[in-house]
């Protein structure tokens, strides 16, 4: 296509950028997409896509630590944060600079994301619960944080679009818990595109472990009944015959995006290289960091179905500055540095021009780029309110074998503490039951082997020991909702730049007392659950772990959930937010931001689904703006 001025320039090919590119090009708009990662990663031809993905898979097999970014190239020209770089921070004057993120602390930020074609959907787990209606009204309901500028119900049609595009497997009728009723939250007769992913044998073991007796726990002198929900997720299962939507399309007449109806059965979207590979989850048990058959959704599936006659993509192009007219404040171009190959310091500068600009580079990169460009920040909110789910893990041995290390990372969650009056005092949390044993906190089962061998075990004794303990491993998550706080933020500092001279993000991060109280509360709940389940608790927290807090004399460790949100919050007035409800920056009439950075609060849901719903809302606003 190649033109001098596009309708829209998008930065980033993750799920937000890809959904935007697909929606706009299919509505006939000319789009240029800038992607910082390698050309090979965006291959849309079958052979290229297959070869590249097999390279990722091989890299994963050979990686000593199979962390979220282990299969993917980490480029000096467009580095990614990595959890392996988390290190103690001596003091705020000497941040940890071990990895790409400059960690100023006092606690290191615990999550990473992936900068490359397809973005973090390459390594996401794929859990897609919706947020709760009350999550949108934290200030009104609980007197903490902020309200969203619209309600859950305003976002509902866009949730349906996101669930169509990602391809959600789940059972609406089974969605229960505080502030969740199927009809209230999903509408009458709504179904997901695919039937629920079967709950694991481990889940069933836990649910049945009390022989039908309801488990109750006490917290803050109130009794709570534990319930279990099959988690909706973005991976392929059996098509749901009652699902009747084909896809999202722009209706010029109504000036709205709409889900088009169809009589055809939903067709699960297979891999990039073969439509018949990946039509079902095959139980690879490696969703994070890589689904070998691409039964798990990734954003390249969306990008592939954009109208490529209306789409140009420039890869290895790192956006370095957003240019604007000081009079009109309109954005006039995006300067990018196109490097020759992944390690090369040699680059050429280019300027991408369009009528409208969309930053979809991730919560951290969007904020960094805005700060580096000195734009969109009249509210002083750019980079602030960085949030994540702070994940407190507890682990123990079940009285009987549940056989973990099989199936998707999690197929069931405990929703009991997702909402309640306690949110005035401490964070809410969701508790996924982890299907992968103690892998996350202890590097099991490898560590189980080395511990046993270290103790002198060998032969049949070793084999019997391992086949007794590994199948009984239980890991629970307590994914605590972090609230927006101005001091948790992304900044830039001219002392810290990457090889191309682009800023590295400087992260300031801490766990407030609101969070610390939730760790204490969650541990109390965990203790009662383990007692009810007759689980032997092996949880151990250490002050040696850089991600620790000490509350009332007790140490708690937390991990990152990879749910990086909040750095360019959306709001209803320009003084306290960066973007308006359409996700257009208050300061620049032709600049939109998309992605998790827009979320004013996090709720207890994995944020990708909500962020995708928001992206459809932004795409609709952009189409309206282009046509008027």
């Amino acid at each position, binding site marked *: 296509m190649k033109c001098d001025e596009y309708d829209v320039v998008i930065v980033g090919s993750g799920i937000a950028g890809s959904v935007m590119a697909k929606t706009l090009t299919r509505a006939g708009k000319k789009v240029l997409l800038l992607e910082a990662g390698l050309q090979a990663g965006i291959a849309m031809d079958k052979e290229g896509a297959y070869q590249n993905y097999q390279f990722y*898979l*091989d890299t*994963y*097999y*050979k*990686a*000593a630590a*199979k962390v979220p970014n282990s299969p993917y190239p980490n480029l000096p020209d467009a580095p990614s944060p990595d959890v392996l770089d988390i290190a103690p921070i001596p003091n705020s004057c000497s941040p940890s600079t071990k990895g790409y993120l400059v960690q100023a602390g006092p606690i290191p930020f615990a999550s990473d994301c992936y900068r490359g074609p397809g973005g973090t959907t390459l390594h996401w787990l794929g859990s897609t619960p919706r947020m709760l209606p009350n999550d949108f009204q934290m200030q009104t309901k609980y007197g903490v944080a902020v309200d969203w500028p619209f309600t859950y119900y305003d976002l509902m049609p866009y949730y349906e679009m996101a669930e169509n595009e990602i391809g959600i497997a789940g059972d609406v009728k089974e969605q229960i818990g505080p502030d969740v009723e199927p009809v209230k939250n999903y509408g009458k007769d709504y179904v997901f595109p695919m039937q629920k992913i*079967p*709950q*694991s*044998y481990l889940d*069933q073991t836990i649910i049945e472990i009390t022989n039908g007796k309801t488990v109750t726990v006490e917290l803050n002198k109130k009794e709570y009944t534990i319930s279990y929900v099959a988690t909706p997720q973005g991976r392929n*299962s059996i098509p749901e015959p009652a699902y009747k939507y084909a896809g999202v399309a722009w209706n010029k007449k109504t000036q709205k995006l709409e889900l088009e109806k169809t009589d055809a059965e939903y067709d699960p979207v297979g891999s990039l290289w073969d439509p018949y590979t990946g039509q*079902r*989850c*095959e*139980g*690879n*048990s*490696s969703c994070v960091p*890589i689904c*070998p*058959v691409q039964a798990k959704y990734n954003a390249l599936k969306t990008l592939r179905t954009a109208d490529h006659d209306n789409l140009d993509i420039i890869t290895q192009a790192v956006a370095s500055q957003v240019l604007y007219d000081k009079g009109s404040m309109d954005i006039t171009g995006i300067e990018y540095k196109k490097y020759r190959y992944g390690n090369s310091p040699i680059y050429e500068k280019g300027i991408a021009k369009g009528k409208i600009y969309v930053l979809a580079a991730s919560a951290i990169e969007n904020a960094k780029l805005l700060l580096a460009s000195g734009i969109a920040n009249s509210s002083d909110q750019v980079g602030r309110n960085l949030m994540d789910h702070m994940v407190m893990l507890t682990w123990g041995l079940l009285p009987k*074998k549940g*056989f*973990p*290390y*099989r*199936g*998707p990372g999690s*197929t069931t969650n405990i929703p009991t503490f997702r909402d309640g009056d306690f949110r005035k005092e401490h964070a809410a949390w969701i508790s996924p039951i982890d*299907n*992968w*044993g103690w892998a996350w906190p202890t590097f099991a*089962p*490898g560590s*189980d*082997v*080395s511990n046993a*061998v*270290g103790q*002198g075990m*060998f*032969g*049949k*004794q*070793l*084999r*019997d020991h*391992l*086949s007794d303990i*590994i*199948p009984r491993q239980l890991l629970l998550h307590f994914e605590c909702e972090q609230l927006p706080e101005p001091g948790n933020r992304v900044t830039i500092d001219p002392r810290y730049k990457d090889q191309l001279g682009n800023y590295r993000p400087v992260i300031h991060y801490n766990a407030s007392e609101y969070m610390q109280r939730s760790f204490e509360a969650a541990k109390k709940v965990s203790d009662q659950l383990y007692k009810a389940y007759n689980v032997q608790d092996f949880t151990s927290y250490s002050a040696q772990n850089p991600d620790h807090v000490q509350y009332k004399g007790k140490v708690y460790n937390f991990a990152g959930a990879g749910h990086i949100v909040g750095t360019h919050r959306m709001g209803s007035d320009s003084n306290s937010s960066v973007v308006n409800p359409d996700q257009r920056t208050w300061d620049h009439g032709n600049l939109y931001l998309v992605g998790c950075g827009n979320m004013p609060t996090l709720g207890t849901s994995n944020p990708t689904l909500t962020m995708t719903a928001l992206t459809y809302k932004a795409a609709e606003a952009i189409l309206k703006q282009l046509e008027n």
Partner: protein
Amino acid sequence: MNTNNHATFLTISAYLTGFSETDLLGTGMVDPYYAAIRDNNDPEVLGYFYQEAATILADSHGDEAEINEAIAARLIPDSCYNGIAKTIILLWYTGNYGNDVLSTDSYKEALVWNVAGAHPPGAKQPGYGSWALPPFSV
């Protein structure tokens, strides 16, 4: 290839891991693991290790309890043969030599997944819905 040492490696591996020689042969990893042990150890120390292992196997005439007792006393202690016995166990169970994954094959053939009733993550996938049932092998 030293055929005596190779045979000793297979037989002692079976006693060290608790898996049968047939199981170990079935992984296809006997040759690469034998080579990895050969290439990463002092030949002299390794020679003594094989000599000791062969002596243990010969002297006990297949009496399993006696062999295990001798292995525990003469091969497993860290003071013996630079810890080669433990290295062999870890290689079979994890596919790792030290901290390094030896190869994509060694990753997939690690015995730990077998004893877990599972499969190596990202490989040998057991199929849709398999995780909702007890493992096949149980």
